[in-house]
């Protein structure tokens, strides 16, 4: 493992890509993510956003927590850990997963990579080693943190396939969504997965930290040919909401960080019922989720479009204009592509149903003066933005 013995000199560690991102940063807006220093915006937010939607954006993914899970019982262990039936996952494939505590409340979500019969990688937003180890008692598995041993770049956007190909990574044409391939970028061994958090065509490229800068340079060497932008977390927040992806710990409280009774959320309550398989056999939280499912659902994290173009921000949601308070907006953006206010809102259901009329009451400023406004909200079950080119194999060549 890579141990940074000088870590105490830095409040936040540098990722293996830091030198390049730092050199390109004009805004110097840095923030912390899992002890690493990452950019909120590298240069210009709108340019980074549009690179994802119409060009190619490159984001440093290294701080994402990565755990290697191997051993004889790796499958059985994961099967008990995760709510989803992973019996159909195969080596070379990735799937989206969620895991709960005994009470059936969401601890975190993530992606599960299967490399071999008994060899998996679990990626998550939050630190999970304690939970993963605690869940391991009674299983023959090895669980190791490899967050710091694997550098990763998200390369996302309609031209990402062309960019990576031009950068020297051959063999991507037949890689399907959620597929994994061991390839080379010139002479650098890389693992590429067709995964992402943007809702667009995109890849995640995994590389040894020692080769990180060479990978970065190979990609940015074709910047003259394509619009390639380094991307920060702010643009990511915009595109992930457009794609309808949730972020545990931000859109809802995760089980392990919840103190107040009832402030945590079950998978059903955050719209992840589709990742729960109650028939697959036992998993942590199953009993609680069966009991919950037998009752009308109490609330759900709901995708809503808010009428108008005023910035909604954090707002309360009412059943009808001036009606009963039924919820609150958890995250919201103005979508430049869709020209709409998009939001995820935690909304109380009435007798198991979403209230018919939803209105947001919010405060906004005009030339520094506060005003109050009401706007009607329209719930949506599908992601806000699903471009066709996202899932085409082979992807369109630019």
């Amino acid at each position: 493992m890579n141990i940074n013995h000088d870590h105490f000199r830095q409040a936040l560690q540098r990722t293996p890509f830091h030198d390049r991102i730092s050199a390109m940063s004009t805004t110097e807006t840095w923030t912390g993510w899992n002890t690493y220093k990452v950019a909120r915006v590298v240069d210009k937010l709108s340019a980074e956003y549009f690179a994802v939607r119409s060009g190619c954006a490159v984001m440093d993914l290294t701080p994402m927590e990565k755990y290697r899970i191997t051993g004889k019982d790796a499958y059985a262990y994961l099967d008990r850990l995760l709510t989803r039936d992973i019996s159909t996952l195969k080596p070379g494939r990735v799937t989206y997963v969620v895991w709960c505590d005994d009470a059936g409340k969401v601890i975190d979500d993530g992606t599960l990579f299967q490399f071999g019969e008994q060899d998996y990688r679990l990626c998550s937003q939050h630190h999970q080693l304690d939970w993963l180890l605690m869940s391991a008692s009674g299983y023959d598995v090895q669980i190791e943190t490899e967050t710091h041993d694997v550098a990763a770049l998200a390369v996302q956007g309609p031209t990402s396939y062309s960019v990576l190909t031009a950068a020297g990574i051959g063999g991507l044409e037949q890689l399907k969504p959620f597929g994994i391939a061991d390839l080379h970028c010139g002479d650098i061994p890389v693992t590429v997965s067709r995964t992402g958090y943007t809702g667009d065509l995109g890849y995640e490229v995994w590389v040894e930290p020692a080769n990180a800068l060479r990978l970065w340079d190979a990609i940015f060497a074709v910047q003259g040919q394509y619009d390639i932008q380094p991307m920060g977390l702010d643009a990511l927040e915009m595109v992930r909401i457009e794609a309808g992806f949730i972020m545990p710990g931000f859109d809802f409280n995760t089980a392990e960080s919840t103190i107040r009774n009832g402030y945590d959320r079950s998978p059903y309550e955050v719209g992840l019922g589709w990742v729960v398989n109650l028939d697959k056999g036992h998993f942590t939280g199953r009993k609680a989720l069966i009991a919950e499912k037998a009752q009308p659902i109490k609330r759900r994290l709901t995708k809503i479009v808010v009428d108008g173009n005023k910035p909604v921000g954090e707002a309360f949601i009412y059943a009808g204009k001036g009606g009963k308070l039924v919820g609150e907006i958890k995250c919201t953006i103005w979508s430049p592509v869709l020209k709409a206010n998009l939001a995820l809102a935690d909304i109380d259901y009435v007798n198991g149903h979403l209230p018919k009329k939803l209105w947001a009451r919010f405060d906004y400023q005009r030339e520094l003066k506060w005003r109050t406004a009401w706007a009607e909200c329209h719930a949506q079950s599908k992601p806000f933005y699903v471009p066709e080119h996202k899932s085409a194999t082979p992807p369109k060549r630019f």
Partner: protein
Amino acid sequence: MTERNDVIIIGAGHNGLVCAAYLARAGLNVLCLESSSSAGGMSAPRTLGDDYQFPGLAHLSYPVASAIRRDLKLDKFGYIPGKAIDTIALDAGGNHLTIGANSVSGSGLAESDEAAYAEFRKQYLDFAKALSPLFENKPPRLKNIPFADKTTLAKLGWNVRMGLGRETMYELLRVAAINIYDVLNETFEDDRLKGAIAADAVMGSAMGPRTPGTVLTWLQRLHSELGGPMSLQSGGRSQLVHALTQSAEDAGARIQLNTHVEKILVDNGKAFAVELADGEMLKAKIVISNADPRSTFGKLVGAPLLDAMFANRVSQIRGAGVVAKLNLALSGMPEFEGLTEAQLANRLLVAPSMKYIEHAFNHSKYGEYSEHPVLDIAIPSLHNSSLAPDGHHVMCVNVSFVPYDLEGGWEDEETTFAYKVISQLGQYSPNLKSLIVDHEFLTPRDVETQFHAVQGHWHHGELSIHQSFMMRPLHGAAQYDTPIDKLFLCGAGCHPGGGLTGLPGRNAAKRVLESGGAK
């Protein structure tokens, strides 16, 4: 097996038998499976060679809970609580103390201690009585409290506040969670007396007199004493196990010996059968485990069928056994300096001071045995001469504090240590060594192997505060039911814990019936 089983009980220890008898009386079809060749678990009699019989591992006991004695008609089936015995605190110089229920005597004992003893006993028996709603009932839930639990709490509150009175209540609240060491030092002068009481407070637990919570373990012991005096299990038809077996079988329960359960089978979160060592599957509508919670969940059910936090809590249950058993077959009557033969029928205790006990305990913490262990000695053949050939005797000794995990392992040390214990006994009884015909020595490891109790713990888990009441054996299974539907617990690992009270078995049976029986 064509018979339809409403209930399978795993283990015919006394709690399993109590539970079986109650459920059979309620009309359920009960099959009780016992892996050894006799019922009774840790209270089942033992033999050494052809000629010597010994009481079970638990050779001292208090009478079974009176409600159980009545409900299960144990008197009709021959149950007679044993004759009351005193404790004689042995002194190497021959100045032994005789400690009874309400009085203490012996040479060199200060008058102030004699008076303090009577007062102390009265006060602590009052405390134990005030807490009895808590000890006798299913532990109350603290969230979504059902009515029965409210009654328990109300009775407890009334007893503590109104029964004891304000000043006494304050005293109970002051001492409830502290150690016996401080309390005894406040009350008495005499080291022998303090040692004897402290030894009882920590008996069977990995605790020394200075361990917090040892007043509570002492109160739990006193609670058993409310039902009658301590006596010796000296074999015969009057024994609890015998009467319980009769009572259960009379009500229709079937007890099947030499039948080892390997697995509790669970389908879709519900227990439906057990699998035996030979692979046979026996179905039942309800499975009740008298095995200890760590075996039940860790081995019989297995972590994959449990939620992660619950499985983790199971693996964290504290309960390393610290008591070894030495059974001696003797060719004659051992002589103890300063004691008459009549006095030898009592319980003899080597725990001359609290410091002595604490030192013995310290060794066990570090994986060592003490050269000066605490010894709890009885000669059952003085109560029942049929246990040994004419003129011969049997002696049983509980040896505390003996580590489950001995540094370097037990294999080469078992005999060495047994001899050390025998030499120690020789200090009080010079002719003992020459009388020994045969011996049996069971370390906590042997207790684990023979009684299927993880780490050889008498009580299936330490009786520490964090494993008592609504946290016994653990959060999520503290009311005899478990996260697995139709799987219940009825053993000493449950509230109120070990001892031959039968209360866990009775409470579990009530819980099964409350939750719909075999419907």
